[in-house]
């Protein structure tokens, strides 16, 4: 298998993983909205914005899914995924470090994870997104050089 094929294959896998993850957690948060909102209310730093956050996060997750499904917007989907996962990770880190009682704001089976495991899981997903984004940019640069140089590949 060529290197480019391998990169494309790995990017597609990351994309489908993100589609599954965000659809699953987004839908779960909407179905169990009262529980999600209640767990945000128990979080001292964001409880004042519980209604806005409890609606905007699942909607944002589902918007990212739409971007990832259509190839035209996939790059933007990866970028927004990175931003959202980074925000979740910063929040989880803050909660682990400074809050003694930790309510779970996650969706579905992910709430079975401990906060430390959640942090590990998020870090792993962020790493996958970063690899995909960097490899896509590298690939674009390679094409651009060959186009401007007008040399046969």
């Amino acid at each position: 298998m060529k290197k480019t094929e391998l990169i494309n294959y790995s990017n597609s896998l990351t994309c489908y993983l993100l589609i599954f993850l965000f659809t699953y957690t987004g839908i779960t948060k909407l179905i169990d909205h009262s529980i999600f909102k209640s767990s945000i209310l128990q979080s001292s730093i964001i409880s004042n914005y519980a209604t806005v956050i409890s609606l905007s996060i699942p909607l944002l997750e589902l918007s990212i899914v739409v971007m990832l499904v259509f190839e035209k917007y996939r790059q933007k989907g990866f970028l927004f995924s990175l931003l959202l996962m980074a925000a979740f990770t910063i929040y989880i880190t803050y909660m682990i470090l400074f809050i003694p009682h930790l309510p779970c704001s996650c969706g579905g089976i992910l709430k079975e994870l401990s906060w430390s495991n959640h942090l590990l899981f998020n870090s792993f997903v962020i790493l996958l997104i970063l690899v995909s984004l960097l490899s896509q940019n590298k690939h674009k640069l390679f094409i651009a050089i060959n186009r401007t140089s007008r040399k046969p590949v």
Partner: protein
Amino acid sequence: MKKYLGIFVVMLAITASAFTVNHKDAKLAGSSYTYNLYGQPGQNNSSNLNNPANYTFVGTSSLSCSGSINRCGVEDATDDGFGHPDFTKSYTIRVRN
């Protein structure tokens, strides 16, 4: 074919969420709440004791109380969706140890 794989994954995730979400019964059962008026005037008034707004969620672990022999919180309660105990469901009253 590859074009529709993303949509297939979306359908798969929706199906997975439908099977793994426990709707109404999963309302943070087993939660503990401290009684905000513990040690305060009016702490034993039944209107105060039965007002969910007077309770604060502290997690799912057992409460540890000190001080006078009065209600300091409730355990094994179900959340009402707003961070307070749902007194229409079962719960355990906690007083000083």
